[in-house]
Each structure stands twice: as C-alpha cells, then as structure tokens.
C-alpha cells in the first residue's frame, strides 16, 4: 500500500471500430494529489476513466488501481474494487426516481449494513459537505444543473473512496457553480485523504487546482507537468492548447479542398 501511485497505466491500446482511441498511452496518478487529464474533445478522456473503472476492456496494456490489475479481475472483484472508486459523471447520472437524500444513501444501503439512523447521519454529513443539506427532499428534476452535480458528488464520496474520478465536472456550469465545484474538489481531496483524477478541457479552471496535468492527443500523452510549466512547453501544439488559440498546429479547418474550388463548384 506504500506505492506512491494509486493508478498506473502502461502502454494502453484501445480502438473503437476502425478509430484508434489510445495508442500506447502511459500515465500515473500519484496518491493524495489532484491529477488532471486534458485534451481536445473526442480524445477519449471519458473512455479512459471507464477503462480505469473496468467498464471497458482495453485491447492491450496494463491498468493498476491500488496495486490491483484491473484487466485481471473477475466480475465480483471488479465490483469490490469499484467501492473504492467514486466517479462524478458528466451528466451527473442521478437516479431520477429517488430524492437527493435517497441518491446519496443508495451506495450506503447497497454496500453496508448500517442501521437507518447511521445512514441518515452519514447522508446528511455528505450533503452538508456539498452545501445541499437543505435540498435533501428534492427530486433530481427539481435541482439546477450545478446542484445536481453537487448531489452526484455527495453520492460519489458516500463510501469515502480512495480514488475520485471527475468526468468533465465544469462543462455547462455557470461561473458560481464552477467556483463552488472547484473549491469542493480541492477541499474534498484533502478532507477525504483521497486521490483525484480529473478529466476536463477547461484549462484555466483545471490549472488552478491540479497538481499535475497530462495532455492527451492522438491516443498518447503529448505533454505532462505542473500547470505552470505547460505554458512554456517546447511543443507549439501544447502551447496552442494551453493558450486556447483557434489555429496553429491543430488546424481550425477540418481537412478539405481549397475553399475556392468548393465555391466555384469545380471540386477536384
């Protein structure tokens, strides 16, 4: 258990149909830190989280979570491992037929034999941590997007997981909700003594809390380091991504014929 890295991925290969998603990707997630994986949309960041959670089997490569080889686990062991992983989905994925309280209580009821009053205390504690103790009786349809994500976060931390995975936590959030989420992610990582793995393309928000950033493109890690280092990275491609410039090594235009041919209707 003294391994400094909670998650280790070595030489991961994965393809979906004819499209190569990962082509020899390797990275490590150090214990107790917030690690971010960034990359353009469609670079397979969400897929990576699912591979770590064992929901998708990679074509080749080794994934170790807390020293266990995810690929080699049976179905029962895999479900056991997942009790140690909390994941916040991009769509929040709250159970729509349950109240906020019951959503957070769900993993507790499923995995523990705690008496009802202990569950109540735990759920209220988790909801209080995300500031939504007062919203416990609301249904997901009555929550705003930001609130739903916070309830989902409270649910993800219900079992005090070692590893917290966030899938695009900032997408579609207003500035206040974004600020709340940022401070929560930072605070919870410390308070739970957990390790966080964040997948995002919101560079400024991510850079403000991450201890280490990996930039993924074309199925590989193309840059890694502390957020400050990436601004002056030798690769122009990474500088383009970090600065958010529309054109550069990653072209603005999808490959096409010269515009003039299309306009004149004499495409080659």
């Amino acid at each position, binding site marked *: 258990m003294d391994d400094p890295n909670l998650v280790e991925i070595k030489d991961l290969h994965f393809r979906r149909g004819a499209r190569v998603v990962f082509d020899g990707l390797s990275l490590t997630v150090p214990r107790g830190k917030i690690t971010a994986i960034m990359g353009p949309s469609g670079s397979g960041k969400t897929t990576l989280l699912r591979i770590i959670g064992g*929901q998708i089997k990679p074509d080749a490569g080794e994934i170790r979570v807390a020293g266990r080889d995810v690929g080699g686990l049976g179905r029962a062991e895999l*479900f*056991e491992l*997942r009790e140690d992983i909390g994941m916040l*989905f*991009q769509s929040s*994925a709250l*159970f729509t037929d349950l109240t906020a309280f019951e959503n957070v209580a*769900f*993993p507790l009821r499923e995995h523990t034999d705690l008496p009802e009053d202990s569950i109540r205390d735990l759920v209220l504690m988790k909801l209080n941590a995300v500031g939504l103790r007062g919203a416990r009786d609301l249904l997901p349809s009555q929550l705003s997007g930001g609130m739903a994500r916070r309830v989902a976060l409270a649910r993800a931390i219900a079992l005090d997981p070692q590893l917290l995975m966030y899938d695009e936590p900032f997408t579609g959030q207003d500035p206040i909700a974004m600020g709340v989420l940022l401070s929560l992610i930072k605070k919870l990582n410390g308070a739970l003594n957990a390790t966080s793995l964040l997948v995002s393309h919101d560079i400024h928000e991510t850079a403000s809390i991450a201890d280490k950033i990996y930039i993924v493109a074309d199925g590989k890690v193309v840059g890694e380091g502390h957020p400050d280092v990436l601004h002056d990275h030798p690769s122009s491609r990474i500088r383009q991504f970090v600065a958010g410039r529309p054109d550069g090594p990653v072209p603005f235009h999808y490959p096409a014929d010269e515009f003039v041919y299309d306009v004149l209707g004499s495409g080659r």
Partner: protein
Amino acid sequence: MIGFLRGVGNRSLDRVAGVGRATLVLTAALWKVPRLSDVPLIVKQIYNVGVLSLVIVVLSAFCIGAVLALQFHTQLGKFGAQDAVGVGLALVLLRELGPVVTALLFAGRAGSAITAEIGLMKTTEQLSSMEMMGVDPLHRIVAPRLWAGFVSLPLLTAIFNVVAIYGGMIVAVEWMGGDQGRFWSGIQAEVDIWDDIGKGVVKSIAFAVVVTWIAVFQGYDTEPTPEGIGLATTRTVVVSSVMVLAIDFLLTLSMYGDFK
C-alpha cells in the same frame, strides 16, 4: 450482387450476435437467486408491469369475450346449438386467445415501458454510474423486472380468461337469452384441467419469459440516443408480438399435436 450477399451476411451476423448478447444478459441477471432483500424491488416491479396493466387487460378481455359470444351465438344458433357457446368460448380462450392476446397487450403496455425505462437509464448514464458504485445493474435493475414479468403475465392471463368468459356469459345469457345453467355446466363438463387450462398456463409462462426477456434486453442494449430509445421500444413491441404468435403456433402444434 456481392454487396447484397455481404449485406445479408452482416445482418445475419448482427442477429446472431444480438441473440448471444441477449442470452448473456438473461443468464447473468438470473444467475443470482433473489435474496429476501430483493423482494421489495420485485414487488414494486410487479406493480409497474402487472397491476398497471390490469385496466387494459380487463377491458380488452371483456370486449373480446363479448364479441366471441356474439359470433358463437349467431353461428351456432343456425344449428340450434346455442348451448355450446359456453364451451366454445372457454376452449378458445383458455387454449389460444387468452395467453396470446394477454401477451400481446403485455408487450404493448408493460414491455415497451420496461424498454423505455431501462433505455433512458442507460442513456442518462444511470446504469453506468450504478456499475461504478459497485452495484450490478443486471441484478438491481434487470433481474427484478424479469422476475416481475414472469410472475405477472401468467396471472394477467388468468384474469383475462375469467373476465372474457364472464363477458361472454353476459352477452350469451343476459342479452341473447341463453340458458345460464347450460352455459356453465357445458364448461364444467368439457374443460379439462390439464389439456385446456394447464397447457394454456404453459403457453403464458413461455410468453412471459419471451416478452420480458426481449423488453429488458432491448432496453439494456439500446443505443444511448433519443432515436435509439424510440427504435428499441418499437423493436420490443414488434419482435415480441411476432415471437408470441410464432411460439404459440409451435406450442399448439406440439401440445395438441394430433390434428388430422
């Protein structure tokens, strides 16, 4: 030509792969025997698929029983055999129409609802998030619906038969002025507990397995988009209706096999 053959081949492979995936879902979901703590989940699903289907089943049963009695009464009346209305009604319903029509109604009312619900849960990542919480959706979501379907459809079929015969009785006796005593005594004398009732129950159990299985699998296998849910729901109704009719033919052939 080659393209056509390739298309046929690909579609056949897709079908075979689909049957394989469906079998995996079914076995994985039913592998674990339900525990005592699963009973509330199953009861809730019996309410959703069984109790909520009652209105449509009872209404249809009454109407079908009534029209059957009308037709029987007119046709049999030509030979002065009105007293056989009860028997005819009971045999047709118990052997064929009861199980089949209830299964078709069940596919439309409960099957489509199951597919849409599971499909939407998949599309909104609820199934994924459940998996990531270490809870297997096959046990938590799929299995209770399967068991509920297995229990509900045979019971609904029994209710259908009772209501339909009663509906027929109202038409034949109260309206057409048939003899109530002969109506019931004919049924009592001619209906066999195994040949007519038992085999009908066998049919309804077979239909229950097929329809619920298809509904659950279509939802679980939905392509997670709005169109995907629509397509899956349609497929549930179409595929299970066709399967019910086909299986009914095979069962009738094998169970009442000595047709000359």
